[in-house]
């Protein structure tokens, strides 16, 4: 296959490699319950 004459040289150092990353560990949600968005106000006796 003839791709013609060389025209220029490019030195490419990619910020991230164009290679698939290995499988990441599955996401595990935090076990601590989320705070109540509407806490009940304490009632004075």
């Amino acid at each position: 296959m003839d791709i013609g004459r060389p025209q220029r040289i490019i030195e490419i150092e990619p910020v991230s490699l164009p290679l698939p990353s290995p499988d990441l560990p599955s996401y595990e949600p935090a076990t601590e319950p989320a705070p109540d968005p509407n806490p009940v106000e304490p009632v004075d006796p």
Partner: protein
Amino acid sequence: MTTASALRPLEATTGIEPIVAWRTWALTGHRDGTNLLLRPVAGRSRPWRPMQVAEAGCKHTRMHSSPSVDCTCGLHGTHGLDLLRRTRCPAVLGRVALWGRVIEHDHGYRAQFAYPQLIALICQFCFWQWGSHAPSPDIVGWFPRDALVPLCWGHLELAQRYGMEPRRLLPADEVGLALREAYAVDQLIHW
């Protein structure tokens, strides 16, 4: 090509984004469709292994790093599809990322590092005839030395008529999916 660098110095630039080019590969695998490997269409060069960066080497001489301006070594990619229609026995067409030292030519590139980005099985006869308008292959023929050849039904019949008889037929959809999964890349759809 060998005298170009002697006539005038080549422009040299830098970049941080890989170049994406067109490329074809040959395909090998076991008779059950496992151990699929993309291979260069020319010669008996090393396969491109799944999940590993392909790195160029020069089979002519080990005295220079690849790609060298005064050689033809390196991992090839092209600007367009038409040039690839002349390649010998292509089985897979795709887009390939090229980086490291890349030499840009009139019609393509030679690179130090590469990895496929999008791939599709092609019937080599349809690709030679119709290029980007080629239909998808229907089956993949398994041949001695683990060569896998995707074909449409029409060209399978033609191949058989001329003595090119596959030892086994595999569904092209299944082989294509297994290949994409092995290399963790997406299907090339529009080309």
